């Protein structure tokens, strides 16, 4: 009994040590930063629901706004994609977990989603209304699927890397969102604080790009070492 206990302790110690040492051997870099906005922050226009009373009634407390350019209170940009554009040549496989795009209150949530090529994207209808999901893609197959029932979901896989695939609902003309399909896992979309974080970037030199539907693109070249935390900031302004 004593021998088995000893063997178990030693075995557990060896496993833990190997796991720890392997994580130390491959501790990729973390690239983080913010996307700032230069200039006076625009006031986004409230959504005009037109004759769609059912949509308007879902927003009794706070009317949603046009999300094509959201500048956060801290003068940063929401919904900007930051990604490693060039420099990574390793093999990657898409995560098993899907990316989700929902329709709530007659708005796409999130306004910008990002997935890897080959990763599942699940489009859901969270409203008790008819929506349709139509993609305006150039490199991936377009599709247009009606979702008449609340809770319906449609799963798609985009095989080709492609930025800025526009999503539309033709029943509700104001509904618009973007889906980015990336070739690797090194990407991040800014949120309410305008920051991004990209983890586990292998040591090397890369082109980092920011993409925004209204503010355009900007690139920076970065070099990172294993285990390094690198801060990279972008500043965008109206074109």
């Amino acid at each position, binding site marked *: 009994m004593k021998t088995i206990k000893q063997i178990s302790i030693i075995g557990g110690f060896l496993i833990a040590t190997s796991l720890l040492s392997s994580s130390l051997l491959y501790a990729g870099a973390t690239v983080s930063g913010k996307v700032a906005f230069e200039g006076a922050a625009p006031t986004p226009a409230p959504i005009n629901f037109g004759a769609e009373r059912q949509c308007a009634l879902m927003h009794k407390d706070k009317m949603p706004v046009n999300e094509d350019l959201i500048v956060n209170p801290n003068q940063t940009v929401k919904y900007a994609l930051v990604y490693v554009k060039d420099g990574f040549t390793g093999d990657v496989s898409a995560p098993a977990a899907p990316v989700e795009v929902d329709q709530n209150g007659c708005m796409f949530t999130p306004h910008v989603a990002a997935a890897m090529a080959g990763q599942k994207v699940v489009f859901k209808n969270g409203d008790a209304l008819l929506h349709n999901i139509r993609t305006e893609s150039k490199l991936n197959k*377009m*599709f*247009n699927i*009606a979702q*008449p029932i609340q809770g319906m979901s*449609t799963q798609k896989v985009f095989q080709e890397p492609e930025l800025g695939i526009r999503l539309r609902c033709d029943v509700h003309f104001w509904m618009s969102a973007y889906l980015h399909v990336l070739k690797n896992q090194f990407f991040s979309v800014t949120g309410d604080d305008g920051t991004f974080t990209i983890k586990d970037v292998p040591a090397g030199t890369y082109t980092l790009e920011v993409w925004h539907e209204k503010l355009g693109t900007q690139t920076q070249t970065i070099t990172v070492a294993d285990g390094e935390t690198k801060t990279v900031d972008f500043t965008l302004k109206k074109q």
Partner: protein
Amino acid sequence: MCGIAYRNWITGFIILILTVSGCVGEQGRRPPVIRYGRDVCDECRMIISEERFSAASFNSEGEAVRFDGIGCLIRYHVRHPLHAEKTWVHDYQSEKWVQADSAFFVSTQTVATPMGSGIVAFASQSEAARFMSDHGGTSVEWNNLPALVQTQ
């Protein structure tokens, strides 16, 4: 001089008539062009986006009608009967046009068609059978599609 001009005029007119006739005849033999991402379905008004589900025909007035899926084609056909020999669907696998009267239809729950009819078409019975073996579904004849769609 006048005689030559008159002959040229008659010749040109005959050529014009033959050309127009050819176009009309061609219209009945080839499916209408669909501009994907732009044309709207003549039944549900959704923008036609996916070639493999789309269908087209010429109605009784000779007008081209276009559909985002076979379900919409059939719903239209119920109200405005279409001739199968002037109706085309796409083979789900090859995405090539197939005349409706020679296509093999499968009703399945495993394919998300634009308006949810779950009806796909194949150019050959063997391809339809292979699809059903891999994905499930039942074969449906063209003449039975209206009854199926009306139960959906």
